[in-house]
C-alpha cells in the first residue's frame, strides 16, 4: 500500500465519522460537498473532515481507496457509507443519525 493510501486509511480509522469533501464545512467549494456536510451537521455529532482540494494526491487517492469515483465520501467506523445522494437519503430517513451516533458512542466508550 502506498504512502497516500496508508495516510487515508489512518485518517479513516482514527475518526469514527469523517467526510472527504471539497472545501470545508464553513466554506464548501462544491454543492454536493456542501449538502453532505450540512446533513452531517444537522445530525448534531462532531465529525472530522478532509479538504481534498488541499492535496491532489488525496483527491485522487480517496477515489481509489473507496473504490468510489466521486467526492464527497463519508466514512463511518472505517467503512464507506456513500456519497452525497446516499448521505441525504439516509439523513431524510433518520438512518444517518442512528449510524453516526452509534459510531461516536463506540469511540467514547
Amino acid at each position, binding site marked *: 500500500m502506498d504512502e497516500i493510501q496508508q495516510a487515508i486509511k489512518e485518517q479513516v480509522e482514527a475518526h469514527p465519522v469523517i467526510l472527504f469533501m471539497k472545501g470545508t464545512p464553513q466554506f464548501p467549494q462544491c454543492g454536493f460537498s456542501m449538502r453532505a456536510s450540512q446533513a452531517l451537521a444537522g445530525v448534531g455529532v462532531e465529525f472530522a473532515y478532509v479538504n481534498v482540494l488541499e492535496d491532489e494526491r488525496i483527491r485522487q487517492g480517496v477515489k481509489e481507496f473507496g*473504490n468510489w469515483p*466521486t467526492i464527497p465520501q463519508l466514512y463511518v467506523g472505517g467503512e*464507506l457509507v456513500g456519497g452525497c445522494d446516499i448521505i441525504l437519503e439516509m439523513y431524510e430517513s433518520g438512518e444517518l443519525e442512528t449510524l453516526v451516533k452509534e459510531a461516536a458512542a463506540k469511540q467514547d466508550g
Partner: protein
Amino acid sequence: MNEQRVRMIRERMHDALAVQQLEVVDESHLHAGHAGARDGRGHFRVLVVSDAFADKSPLQRHRLIYEAMGDAMETDIHALTIQAMTPQEYQQASSG
C-alpha cells in the same frame, strides 16, 4: 457535447443493467462556472429502474451504476446524481 454524453450514459446503463425505466438529465448548466465545471466534464442526474437493484443496499446500487459508467466517470462526468430503484419501489414512488 453533453447530448452525446447523455446518449453514452443511456447506452452504458442499458448495456450493463436490465433497465426497465431510465431518465438521464443534463444538469451541467446548474453548475456552470463552479470549480468542478471548469474541467469541462458534465453534471448529470439519472433515474434507473432495474431488477438488478433488488436486495442491494444504496451503496451497492450506486457501485453497479458507477461500474457501468466505467472510465466515463474520469473523462466525461464530474458528478452523477443517482436514484436507483427496483420496479416495485418505482411503482410505489410514482403512485404515492
